[in-house]
């Protein structure tokens, strides 16, 4: 289990590579890996976004992510779980979050990856402030745990 808060740009594929290499012989019995990467878009809520500031609560944010990871390991049959989240100054295209779950069973990998991601978005103490041509603005609310059945608005 690994949780990391990252003040510099990170490369999700390198994070996965490092983790995968560490699995070593365990990889032969795992079978399923689900991942989700969220990246910064250059457009939100009707306006181009130049950059973003990601604030967090040192101490609480780390503890909260550790708890999400530990809860997932209790709830699903996971071999391992990785959560990486960016903080500080973020540029369009930069990765913001990576959640990866390894399991012997695809249902457990898929479901835990999504559930951790939704839980992180609704409860982990991070706050986004967007820099647009009109000045800075705090993002007020995250999209709820939605389903693709509800057609998301273009600005989701």
């Amino acid at each position, binding site marked *: 289990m690994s949780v990391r808060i990252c003040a510099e740009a990170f490369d999700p594929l390198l994070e996965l590579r490092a983790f995968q290499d560490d699995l070593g012989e365990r990889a032969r019995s795992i079978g399923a890996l689900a991942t989700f990467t*969220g990246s910064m878009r250059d457009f939100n809520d009707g306006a181009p976004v130049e950059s973003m500031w*990601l*604030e967090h*609560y040192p101490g*609480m944010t780390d503890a909260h992510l550790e708890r999400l990871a530990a809860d997932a390991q209790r709830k699903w049959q996971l071999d391992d779980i990785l959560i990486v989240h960016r903080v500080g100054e973020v540029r369009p295209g930069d990765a*913001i*979050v990576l959640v990866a779950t390894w399991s012997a069973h695809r249902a457990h990998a898929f479901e835990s990856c999504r559930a951790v991601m939704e839980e992180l978005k609704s409860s982990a*103490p*991070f706050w986004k402030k967007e820099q647009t041509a009109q000045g800075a603005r705090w993002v007020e609310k*995250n999209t709820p745990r939605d389903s693709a059945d509800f057609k998301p608005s273009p600005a989701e």
Partner: protein
Amino acid sequence: MFSASFKMSIKVRFFASLADSVGRREAECAFVPGMTVESVWHEINGDAPLPGGALVAINHDYCTLDQALNDKDEVAYFPPVTGG
């Protein structure tokens, strides 16, 4: 505002847009037995209401407004989270 010289005290933190609106990120408050998360807010911010939807935590754990505090607790106030 109370100075840090009180022996019994609460550490107070504000984040994101809520820090902007109260005009600071940290404060300290004398501890009085029976204090709650809500009463500490008013101790510091007077009549200004805690913004709707605000979240609160004691010692890095989410809690409710009526939760009672202990000496040396760290209490935090912040807006809805927007990470991920």
